[in-house]
């Protein structure tokens, strides 16, 4: 259900998007030079000395010199104007470099702006210049994954979107948003239709934005619901360009008596659909708004539907922003210091975890920083929590995924935790993720491009 935020606008504006690309898409974010010997220590949450001074002296791999490490950050910012990954990169590199960089090497983040249509071009540039990809993501990421594997570029994505890309080889997701072969929202679904709102079990509805990505997500949700014994009585698409009037959809939902709604699309559109529903005085038991809606804008757009309807999102084991978790508080402070005005979002939290993982693994390599060393160090992490940002993930064995989920509810005062039976601190971990049986495109492997781990250096 992790969609590109962009997709509502996918089909449009290519008038302008068609012809934009080139060198300028690689904007270097320079977080200030590494200052060796400063007093600042880069501790974050439960992690200590993520970054620090050192005496690195060799150019041990592509993108690595004695003084700097070049890493690529994928983003669609040129298309969506959403700068969340760019902001995270800015904050992390500034903070890390202020503490001395990685063994004295300055961390340089280069934005690889795919502008939706150009993931492959940016990937080729990344292949030529970067040491690794960290803390980014692109809506059409499947278009670049083959190139990435051909040049054996390791990736620590903040978010993976398409089936061919999520969980591909040489990819380590610090906090995976999508797991190949599993529906990681199964726990949420099961809780919703079996425990919390059993009356909704025979009256589930689904509305998907019309794009190839969401169609697959829709099939997966269908499979899970069927497996749970729930009945989908309404399954509908809406055009990616938007809907002139949501009233017919709302009327159809009302007249079919839908009680639980899964909405996979842009939250702007959902807010308008809910306005129609609320106008009709029709209240659903629950609406899965999908976690792209987990932000303040959505609440603002909802208006009076915020309290009238029951909007839920599953954060999939990431600590909520207002939860008072020490790691969240720390990160909020860092954002205020290094990128005031930038918004902390769920993908940004995941990006931050990826950056931490990268920095920790790279630091442990010392002077001999190679891709193999980086990759193997990162795989050592069997209980990675990003310093306390999320539930532990076993990176050496990503499958089956960690079973925890946590649900937030929208209210007019902001997001608050729903009553979902948390049994492990902020999270609930007793309903395992469900393995899919249907045939969905598998992630790309090194073998698919004629390479093997022996080629990896």
């Amino acid at each position, binding site marked *: 259900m992790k969609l590109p935020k962009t997709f509502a606008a996918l089909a*449009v*504006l290519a008038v*302008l998007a068609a012809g934009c690309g080139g060198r300028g898409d690689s904007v270097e974010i320079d977080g200030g030079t590494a200052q060796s010997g400063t007093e600042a220590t880069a501790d974050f949450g439960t992690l200590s000395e993520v970054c620090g001074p050192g005496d690195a002296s060799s150019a041990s791999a592509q993108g690595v010199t004695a003084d700097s490490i070049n890493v690529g950050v994928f983003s669609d910012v040129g298309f969506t104007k959403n700068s969340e990954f760019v902001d995270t990169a800015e904050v992390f590199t500034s903070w890390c470099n202020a503490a001395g960089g990685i063994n004295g090497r300055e961390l340089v983040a280069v934005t690889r702006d795919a502008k939706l249509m150009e993931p492959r*071009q940016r990937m080729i540039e990344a292949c030529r210049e970067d040491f690794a990809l960290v803390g980014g993501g692109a809506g059409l990421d499947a*278009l670049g994954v083959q190139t990435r594997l051909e040049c054996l570029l390791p990736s620590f994505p903040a978010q993976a979107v398409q089936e061919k890309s999520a969980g591909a080889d040489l990819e380590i997701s610090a906090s995976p948003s999508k797991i190949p072969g599993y529906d990681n929202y199964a726990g949420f679904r099961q809780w919703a239709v079996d425990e919390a709102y059993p009356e909704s079990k025979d009256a589930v509805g689904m509305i998907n934005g019309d794009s190839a990505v969401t169609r697959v997500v829709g099939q997966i949700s269908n499979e899970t619901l069927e497996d749970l014994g729930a009945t989908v009585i309404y399954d509908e698409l809406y055009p990616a360009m*938007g809907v002139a009037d949501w*009233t017919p959809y709302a009327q159809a939902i009302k007249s079919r008596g839908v009680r639980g709604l899964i909405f996979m699309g842009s939250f702007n559109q959902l807010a308008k659909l809910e306005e129609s529903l609320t106008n009709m005085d029709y209240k659903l038991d629950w609406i899965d708004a999908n976690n792209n809606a987990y932000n303040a804008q959505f609440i603002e*757009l909802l208006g009076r539907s915020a309290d009238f309807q029951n909007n839920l999102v599953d954060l999939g084991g990431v600590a909520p922003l207002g939860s008072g978790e020490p790691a969240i508080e720390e990160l909020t402070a860092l954002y205020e210091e290094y990128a005031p005005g930038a918004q902390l979002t769920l993908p940004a939290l995941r990006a931050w975890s990826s950056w931490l993982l990268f920095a920790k693994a790279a630091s442990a390599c010392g002077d001999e920083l190679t891709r193999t060393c980086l990759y193997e160090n990162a795989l050592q992490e069997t209980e990675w929590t990003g310093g306390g940002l999320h539930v532990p993930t076993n990176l050496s064995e990503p499958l089956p995924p960690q079973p925890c989920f946590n649900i937030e509810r929208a209210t007019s005062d902001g997001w608050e935790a729903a009553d979902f039976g948390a049994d492990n601190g902020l999270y609930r971990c007793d309903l395992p993720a469900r393995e899919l049986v249907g045939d969905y495109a598998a992630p790309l492997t090194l073998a698919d491009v004629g390479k093997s781990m022996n080629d990896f250096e």
Partner: protein
Amino acid sequence: MMDQFITFGIVGLSTAAIYAIISSGLVVTYTTTGVFNFAHGAVGMMAAFGYWQLYIGWGLPMWVALPVVVLVLAPLFGMLVELLMRPVQGLGDAEKLVMTIALLSGLIALAQWIWNPMKARSLQTFFADREPFHIGAATISWHQALTMSIAVAVALALRALLFRTRTGIEMRATVDDRTLVGLTGANPVRANRVAWITGTVLAALGGVLIAPMVSLDATQLSLLIVSAYAAAIFGRLRSLPMTFVGAVVVGCMEAYLAGYLPQNDYLPGLRLAAPALLLLVALLIFPHRRLRGRERNLTQVPVPTARGTIAFAGIIVVIGLVLATVLGEGHLITYGQIFAFGVIALSLVLLVGYAGQISLAQLGMAGIGAVVCANFGAEGQWWAIPVAMGVSGAIGALVALPALRLSGVYLALGTAAIAVVLDRWIFPMAPVEIFGREFTFFNQGSADLVGPRLFGFAIDSTAELTVFAAVCLASVTLFVAAVRRGRLGRRLIALRDSETAYATFGGSLLYTKALVFGISAAIAGLGGALYGMQLQSVAPEQFGFVAGLGIFLIAVVGGLGVVGNGLFTGAMIAGPMNLLVALWPATQNLVHTLPAAAGLAYGSGAVDDGVVPAVRQRAEAAFRNRKTVPEKEIPVEWWGLQRPWAPSDEEELDRAIATRG
């Protein structure tokens, strides 16, 4: 059951009211000025944003903000648009289209520049605090009720304006014969201005009413109006009452489809494409009067010389080789698209430039080419390319069947509808079995293509593919030039100049149209396949309707009559905009408005027959005779006085008088 039927009907009526307001604005501008305003939705979008800025952004009271937007800013903007459109008034349909498309893309770019799309903005519906009322099981909010009453009021007011006032009669007369209106002492320019102002005010009204119902997003608001097009076509772009009927039909159809369409893997896309299909059906069912406003000056289509064309083709290949050797792979993919886009643009030269058939679906045809090539050429089979060309050609020829009944702006709308159907229904469709073979569209979000193997040599690196694409563009350029020089080219131009005359001389309209649509779709299919091969993997969004508008825009600016346009369009799309952003990243927002600026400059007559012919003329003058200063032109009345009378002068005068009639 009956209850539900009525409920959905009432819901449909509320949607219909919005369409009615928007489409009546379209109709008013079209009937008077003969311009079908693709930017109508974008104007409404600007009004909605302007209203947001005044009302929410700057906190002005509603009773100030609303009149300022609808009654002051919108009319001013309408007058500006009229000024912009005046030069194209006498030109062909393609040129008029370009102006409005340029306006559309320019307004979207501008709005995104001014109002950062990342910030959530919303407008409250009017009377949001009043409880909605009920009719049966249907709920009507006061906003909806307001919209419906405004729709009715607009209908009555327009009727009164057009039939009860002098200006209205002038406006209607302008449509029939501008010259005649001028002769009777009325002012056709004034009539046009009134029409644009009325149209803009209606667009603004529609924008302000629709914005609270949808999210305040520049592109979405601008492009929502496909359904309103369908309503306008019901009224044949002329009759307001029929337009209102059309709006009701479209609105109710959408509501009933939402309520009753059975659900399976193939049908949801159909529902999304339904307004476009309805538009197509309406175009075909309602008889259209022959398009008026034939007072256009048809541009000459120059005949390329054989030597010149061959030299030009050589240059294309050389450019391909140079790019392939000089550029790194990443840049090569970006700039190498020159050739694939060039091929697609050449398909427009043949179709629009020679045969005068406007098509907005060429990029969709390219998408078909790419999909077919991906299906059959997965292991680099070379014959997948001709198959792809064949399939897209055949589909293109099918498109020609509706084209038989349509021309000018109707044809543009019809092909736009086809492009939208491809976008929303066909491309995202689940795999189908054809002859026991599974055929996949962009089902998994992308289609993968590999370069072909020719004579045992695999063309698979980006450099090789770039050269291959350059060779293809060169061959297509030669082919199109050959068509122009040959019999088919003369027939196509005869068809463009007058279909009636062409038929009178015994030409078969059906055959010729099907042929030219087929050939040009095949060329576009080739372009799509090349494009896909260069990118390795393509997504349906890359072949969308809106992307196609951009190519159309630049191709028309380049000049549709000349074969050099292929390279020009390709280079424009892949070149300068990338380069500018690359050199000065800060210019990104500005660069987005460039295509629009180019289109407007073109339309306003700054560039006459397009850029390519202009460049050629200058180049020819420069090469041919460097030393002679061009002779100063002496007006005819001074012949024999300011210069000696030549024997040829008399003959020339006679001829001029004879042609004037």
